[in-house]
């Protein structure tokens, strides 16, 4: 074991190298460009992020951001359907796109001298998309198959989806990223034209480039291709602040399954919404205390000592545009009930309310965050992803440089305070998956946070 002193040295020593050298530019049309050089390999990742996702949608058109993302591969004024993908492929690129609650993003990874291919094509589909009705109707079928694959036939995903719809009443985090099946089956060309017109414009986009590139050269290239695009008067998003919860909520979902599953979620502030700057970071530390490694409390006490869980984990989604939930999910161990698991989790939280975490535990979580920051630099894709996500949920990319410092400042008392303040019944939703043997005729629907890749 390392002494505490050595661990502190470790923490002080590392962040110095992880300084992100990000160059930020803004074009006259409002497009933001972030460039982070990383010349470990002669590759470049290029990502275009739009500030639109399922949390921008209203009932009846849920999932429209996601199907629009699919249609972005289906042809523009100057590209035939599929031609985008063919050109990227012929240039040795790998590409895809994903939609989340707060963003829609497109990416290509290429050898470094081919960045221009990405910019040329992305600029084209930023303003010149053509939604063909026949292609759209085929794609509705594809998306409904995607929904069956990800959600309808996946009992835990069904629970997650119903869970979000139960926990959030008027917040748009109520509905699934992929959309409800009935909405998927009824998208019309006019819906997509409207959505595209509204959100796909340079002033609603962030372009992130990470790789073996020179920032000013990338800026020149961006000016050449994205510069001429006209900005759009983008719509204002209504606040849709979630109504106050008055007591815990319960949900049981029956589906053909072999295993039960338990979900618990407490409404918490996130970095964009927090009244007290430190609280979301304390919640992140809490997630690390509870789960994430073999030494975390859940693994040690619930899985190994009490053997009440086969697996159980905690997750704090801090990078959201709106208030979110701190989630705990788990599968009971053999011959243990969901009820027993829930009680065991509750005891863990009660303990945290009464006793501050130990210095060693706190230090362990912080050391892991510091180490992770180094490990994450192994992936250019991840680095770009982090910058794009921060910008699109309404944060600043510079938070990626400040994050470790914020985590390191969290005290044991602060962790205790957030548990006391937020882990109360008035913020809690509990969901249980009840396995049934017989097939159910009316399957429910998907989840919230997971981006859906095309």
């Amino acid at each position, binding site marked *: 074991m*390392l002494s505490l002193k050595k661990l502190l040295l470790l923490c002080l020593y590392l962040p110095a190298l992880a300084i992100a050298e990000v160059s930020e530019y803004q074009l006259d049309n409002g497009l933001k460009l972030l460039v982070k050089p990383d010349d470990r390999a002669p*590759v470049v990742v290029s990502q275009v992020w739009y500030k639109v996702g399922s949390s921008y949608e209203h009932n009846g058109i849920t999932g429209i951001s996601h199907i629009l993302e699919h249609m972005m591969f289906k042809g523009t004024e100057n590209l035939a359907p599929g031609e985008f993908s063919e050109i990227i492929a012929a*240039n*040795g690129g790998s590409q895809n796109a994903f939609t989340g609650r707060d963003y829609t993003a497109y990416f290509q990874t290429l050898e470094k001298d081919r960045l221009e291919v990405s910019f040329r094509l992305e600029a084209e589909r930023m303003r010149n998309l053509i939604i063909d009705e026949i292609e759209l109707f085929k794609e*509705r079928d*594809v998306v409904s*198959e995607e929904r*069956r694959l990800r959600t309808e036939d996946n009992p835990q995903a069904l629970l997650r989806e119903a869970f979000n719809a139960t926990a959030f009443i008027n917040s748009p985090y109520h509905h699934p990223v992929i959309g409800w099946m009935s909405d998927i089956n009824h998208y019309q060309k006019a819906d997509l034209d409207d959505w595209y017109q509204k959100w796909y414009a340079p002033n609603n986009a962030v372009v992130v480039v990470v790789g073996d590139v020179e920032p000013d050269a990338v800026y020149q290239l961006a000016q050449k291709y994205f510069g001429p695009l006209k900005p759009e008067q983008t719509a204002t998003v209504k606040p849709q602040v979630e109504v106050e919860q008055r007591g815990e909520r319960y949900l049981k979902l029956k589906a053909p399954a072999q295993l039960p599953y338990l979900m618990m979620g407490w409404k918490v502030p996130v970095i964009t919404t927090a009244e007290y700057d430190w609280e979301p970071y304390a919640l992140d530390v809490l997630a690390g205390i509870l789960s994430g490694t073999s030494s975390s409390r859940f693994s040690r006490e619930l899985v*190994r000592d009490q053997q009440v869980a086969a697996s159980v984990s905690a997750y704090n989604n801090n990078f959201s545009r709106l208030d979110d939930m701190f989630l705990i999910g788990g599968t009971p161990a053999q011959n243990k009930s969901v009820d027993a698991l829930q009680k065991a989790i509750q005891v863990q939280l009660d303990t945290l309310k009464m006793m501050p975490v130990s210095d060693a535990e706190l230090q362990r979580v912080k050391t892991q965050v510091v180490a992770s920051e180094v490990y994450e630099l192994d992936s250019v894709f991840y680095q770009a992803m982090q910058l794009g996500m921060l910008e699109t949920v309404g944060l600043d990319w510079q938070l990626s440089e400040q994050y470790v410092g914020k985590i390191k400042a969290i005290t044991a008392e602060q962790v205790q305070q957030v548990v006391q303040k937020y882990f109360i019944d008035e913020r809690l939703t509990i969901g249980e998956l009840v396995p049934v043997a017989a097939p159910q005729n009316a399957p429910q629907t998907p989840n919230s946070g997971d981006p859906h890749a095309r």
Partner: protein
Amino acid sequence: MPVKLIGFFALLGASLSVWATPAIDHWQTEQGTEVYFVDAPQLPMVDIRLIFDAGGARDGDLPGTALLTNAMLKEGTAKSNTNAIAAAFDDVGAKFGSESERDMAVLSLRTLVEDNAMQQAVDMFVELSSQPAFPKESFERLKNQLKTSLQAQKQSPEAIAERNFYQALYGDHPYAQMPTGNEDSLGKITIADLEAFFKQYYVAQNAVLVMVGDLRQADAQLLANKISAALESGKAAAPLPVVNDLTAASEQHIAFPSSQSHLLVGQPGISRTDPDYFPLYVGNHVLGGSGLVSIINNEIREKRGLSYSAYSYFRPMRKAGPYQLGLQTRNEQSEEALKVLRQTLRDYVQNGPTDEQLKAAKQNITGGFALRLDSNSKIADYLGVIGFYQLPLDYLDNFKQRVNAVTQAEIQDAYSRRIDPDLMATVIVGGTGENENKNK
């Protein structure tokens, strides 16, 4: 640290024009472990993979033995219990992993190179890979967790399809079994079985060691010796039996309460050292291996909207791994999708790729070559494959050239000799399961 970065820039500046593939150092330790090392000084971390020829293919009559042996190593040693092992890694931010598939059983470690962190993590890595205690309480718990995993598989049409697909392809060959075992075998496996398995297979002569990271050659030598010397010398695992070709087509419909049917179609394919590797790899890239632009994706998804994902791939293994084509579609249209998938394969075996398709595939594979090696973890993956399957050290250097050399005629020849559309195993999971086990 700043010094290191300056060194890196200088190094890169000097070598920019010749960047092709990382320089691989290869040697054998005194105990007989093959070592593959790449010095990657840019980030202050190191990745270590210790790979044994000790996957599920070595399970014999008790499937799950290899997986449980592998998973038990982190549960206790002569000196440390589960919590102490976990703390040794977690307290210094190191990440330990263990996984066991059909061929490989892998122990992995990612750690910062900061002296204390690395020493503590490596010491524990050495301890658990050489002196596991197989504590009884952990054994019972892991078996229970594995039972839970088996239940999870039973609620997934995809997992059910995979289990039956391997069974249909491999019959009596060890590859037929799932590495996760089954209820019956889990009931029979004892700690003595794990100890015997460990003693036979977790030995220096049966191991490949991969290291990538901020380490100089001399330090890598010391590290390799430390890891290898802790192991019993032992001997390499015996060769696996040859995989027989299918002698008859088969078609299984398995009822499942899902809205979609999962379709798998295939045959035993190729080993990692198969002489037809490149023609078949490039050939399949055109057919179903290139994502959105592949023929199968075009026929199934783009033209007909039948599935979200439709693909084909070779999974080259020590012996002939599967050639697998797959898709998922709503139950009512599974017959139609199967027909299109089979016809697409048939046409391709008969005609091969067009010149244009072949050219596009080569451009895609070679033009994106650098993407395959753009992180330490990807480099470590490749070193593992090169070491475990004994590919030549210049495999990566020659990769592009080998791909570019493949001709249309070679692809057609390889496909016609190796892939027989009339001898395919088909597994369909979903719907009512009518026509169960019907033979074509």
